[in-house]
């Protein structure tokens, strides 16, 4: 089960990993974007971190929605509305629950992914965060269906995310700023795909 306390420590862990990886993500965005992705994500989750106390007595849906609103109003760029929508749809799907079954965890990730696709209109293969979120959601759905434990399912999903990140390298970007580079975007890892993987890893960390 994913308990409310796990969700809280997940959110907090997101802040930590995005702080650790701030420069790394910005460096990835320097190659094929405008050198701000790490700073954007860090600014957003730092704001979430500062308001962390206000999340404590909320249910899971309200926690995630509150994270969403903070991200929307502080991240900016493309990733602000996208991750904002991601957490907003997750929160809406989670509703007023205090804990989620593995199946429900897969469902909220699915809702988050669909939100990102609706807002940004990216499909797998466009070299965006969708290239990580899609295999992650598919892996989660497959494993919970097969009756695996939440930790096992998320471990598998982290592997899928890792592969998804690597698979963005040879792609030509078709969405976002990197798309202006055309062929020149080949050979570079997508920053947003990478931050999506970090967010999933943060969830994994919160369970151990």
């Amino acid at each position, binding site marked *: 089960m994913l308990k409310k306390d796990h969700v809280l420590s997940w959110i907090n862990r997101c802040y930590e990993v995005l702080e650790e990886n701030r420069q790394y993500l*910005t460096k990835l965005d*320097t190659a094929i*974007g*405008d*050198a*701000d992705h790490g*700073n*954007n994500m860090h*600014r957003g989750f730092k704001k979430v971190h500062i308001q962390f106390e206000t999340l404590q007595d909320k249910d899971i849906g309200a926690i995630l929605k509150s994270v969403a609103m903070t991200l*929307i*109003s*502080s*991240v*900016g*760029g*493309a*990733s*602000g*509305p*996208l991750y904002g929508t991601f957490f907003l749809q997750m929160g809406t799907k989670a509703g007023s629950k205090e804990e989620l079954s593995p199946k429900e965890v897969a469902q909220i990730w699915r809702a988050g992914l669909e939100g990102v696709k609706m*807002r*940004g209109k990216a499909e797998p293969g466009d070299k965006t965060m969708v290239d990580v979120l899609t295999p992650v959601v598919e892996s989660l759905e497959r494993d919970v269906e097969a009756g695996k434990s939440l930790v096992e399912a998320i471990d598998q999903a982290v592997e899928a995310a890792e592969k998804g990140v690597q698979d963005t390298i040879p792609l*030509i970007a*078709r*969405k*976002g*700023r990197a*798309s*202006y*580079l*055309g062929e*020149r975007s080949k050979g570079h890892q997508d920053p947003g795909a990478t931050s999506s993987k970090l967010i999933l890893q943060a969830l994994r960390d919160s369970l151990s």
Partner: protein
Amino acid sequence: MKKLINKPDDVIREQLEGMQAAHADLLKVNYEPFYITRAGGPVKGKVALVSGGGSGHEPMHGGFVGHGMLHAACPGEVFTSPTPDQMHEAAKAADGGAGVLNIVKNYTGDVMNFEMAAELAMADGIKVQNIVIDDDIAVKDSLYTAGRRGVGSTVLIEKICGAASEKGYDLEKLSALCRTLNQNGRSMGMALTSCITPGNGEPSFEIGDDEMEIGIGIHGEPGIKRDKIKSVDEITEMMTVSIIEDKPYTRKLKEWDFGKNEWVERELTDEPLKKGDKVIAFVNSMGGTPVSELYGVYRKMAQITDKFGLKIVRNLIGPYITSLEMQGCSITLMKVDDEMIKLWDAPVYTPGLKWGK
């Protein structure tokens, strides 16, 4: 990194405080969240023209707030789109009862944030339209990319639409003018050096002393190709001819449909410039290129437009839509009719553009 700054995290706030101190007669800065409005408050009965985007392009957009141009501007972090709450607050502060036109440069982030902002403002009962500017011909197709970027045309459009708002155009008419101007404008940019954002501290790309980037945007990003540096005549010729010979460009842009009450995609095709067209010619510095060199560009550009039978009726030369300290320039040619020329000549009184008053 060598910059005239204190702490990188304080750059935006401190520079806004400087603008406020310098231009208290023209504008008012709001700090929580960041947005800039005209000093006199909303203009009753006139459509409020709002724009915004990442910082680092000064004087755009904040420097264009004032009589005859913008009613409000939202600065984001350096090179990062501002957020919907800023835009929403700016719309509320600027609305004079006749609605709000958001001028949005075509970048994934700006478009999505302004869409969310428009939805928030509409929920408050404010009539809002978003018109997206996409004039950068370096981006060839819209099917496999995020589409052409919004660059130089934005400055000309903010000036002309600002005058139209003063003249009393309603939201629909102003939106139509904005859309037409966007379709009439074409730009291309190039860089001799990259630039350094304060938050990042390192150049956005490496470039040799004998190299240049062609087809850059305004965010310190590399362009569509790297070349050996050439003479100003050769560079200007390449850019000007590319603009003039640019093929019809078709793409879909989202606008609000007031009948259906939802976002709809409008398919628009820009027709190339043709002999006899009247144009405004805009030679812009990316920040680090001196005005003297822009005149070198203008000289050659004017010879070429002349050869193609285009008539430059007005011009603008200087750093207006910049990319921090980047050396480089962009050229914009915008086809205009007599009404647009009149609007261009109308008085404007902002920190960045002032004439006729």
